[in-house]
């Protein structure tokens, strides 16, 4: 089974790199959706020998939200607010990719130093989680559009979720659902806000929101 877990984790890492390197918003959204689906699948595959109802429910809920609902909301926001399709990065794509690789190296290094209980086959989980968190933060910092910042939060949440998976046994369902709900509300509210901001100001550049500070 370890092959499939490894393969899923690798795909998660690749979706992160894809988000960093993609120049179109739709590609970014799609990559985040794929990441959500992969992460939904991961706990099922990792605990195939000890499947519980709770696990299945959690997986189904998070897959539904992250792979279907959020992307749909975001895609709608893009359409409705007629946001330009380019990502408009502060940091260029190749540089972002390079940064991504450095993050991966750092996450790998940190992950080896964090003592994690659990099976050997999950050894990649912690570095991947850290990496996903880093990428989420990077997206929030290094991209101009408010929408990409929402995407960044989503990726960040995915990272936290992955981190939780390494401790799947100990994590109460409620915590996870609570986080999910937070993000859900977040995305929902931001979707609405984005729509309104774009109606008022004809653009959605987060760096120009600072003009609103008074």
């Amino acid at each position, binding site marked *: 089974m370890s092959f499939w877990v*490894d*393969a899923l*984790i690798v795909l998660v*890492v690749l979706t992160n790199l894809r988000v960093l390197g993609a120049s179109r918003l739709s590609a970014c959204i799609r990559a985040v959706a794929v990441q959500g689906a992969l992460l939904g699948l991961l706990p099922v595959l990792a605990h195939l020998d000890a499947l519980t109802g709770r696990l299945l429910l959690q997986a189904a809920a998070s897959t539904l939200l992250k792979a279907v609902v959020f992307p749909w909301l975001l895609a709608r926001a893009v359409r409705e607010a007629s946001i330009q399709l380019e990502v408009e990065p502060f940091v260029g794509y*190749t540089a972002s*990719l390079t940064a991504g*690789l450095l993050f991966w190296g750092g996450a790998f290094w940190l992950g080896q130093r964090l003592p994690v209980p659990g099976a050997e086959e999950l050894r990649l989980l912690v570095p991947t989680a850290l990496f996903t968190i880093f990428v989420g933060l990077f997206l929030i910092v290094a991209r101009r559009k408010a929408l990409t910042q929402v995407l960044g939060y989503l990726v960040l949440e995915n990272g936290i979720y992955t981190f939780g998976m390494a401790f799947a046994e100990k994590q109460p369902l409620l915590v996870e659902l609570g986080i999910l709900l937070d993000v859900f509300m977040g995305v929902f509210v931001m979707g609405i806000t984005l729509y309104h901001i774009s109606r008022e100001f004809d653009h959605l550049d987060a760096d120009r929101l600072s003009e609103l500070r008074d």
Partner: protein
Amino acid sequence: MSGLFHLLLALLCAPLLLGVVNRTKALFAGRAGAPLLQPYFDLLKLLQKGAVYSRTTSWVFRAGPLVSLASTAAALTLLPLGGLPALLAFPGDLVLFAGLLGLGRFFTMAAALDTGSAFEGMGASREAWYSVLAEPALLLALAAMAKRSGQLSLSGLYAGLSLETLLAPGGPALLLAAAALALVFLAENSRIPFDDPNTHLELTMVHEVMALDHGGPDLAFIQYGAALKFWALGTLLTGILLPLREASPSLDALAGLCGLLLLAVAVGVVESVIARLRLTKVSDLLASATALAVLALMLARRAP
């Protein structure tokens, strides 16, 4: 002895792969296409011609095709093909392999600059740019394989591979390395999405434009060298993805050849369905090849 066998097979069959690529593309486009052996006919035709040299050129221009063909041929002696071992195998031969390809590239680019044509200079400049980004990807992907196998020769890297190893725990790392190598393969062979071998606009060509001034036997050497390079980098790829191993050398050779033919078909399909990338995007794609190789390197673990 079987190492010599692979060399002969490569020298004999390499142009066939280009024929297969073109045939696949023709089928996709709904044409009958040129015969599979057309590359051979082209080579023979070119070998029978005389030569015309530009007055600007010097001996470097004449040496270009010869050196690049000879270095590609020398690089082939280091490559295993599935179960067929390489003629020469020693720790670090993968560095020599990359070095020999670099030597060929150096002289191809020098020959292009020797013509004094702006177009060929542009081609050489782009070739240099591609190779800067492809080189780390190639060597890091091979390093990932070295980490997996604990070996340092190309023959050793590919020795323990089989279809089961692909699906074993270390499999994803191998697949990532293969993905990096696939991008390097396409870039180094000037294939879509990096370069279009069929384009007829000098401004958009990379490899072809560097051969604009060559003719006759020199052009034949260049085309043959390109076929050998296709074969050489192709074996690196099929060695991972189609690690077929049979008992006898002749079956091994057959399996290896089939793998390469499949690769040629795949290249034909890719060229039919994907458009050439915008030039500025090329560095992104090659950087991601390096990223894939680094990822493979981090995930690779020693095979039991």
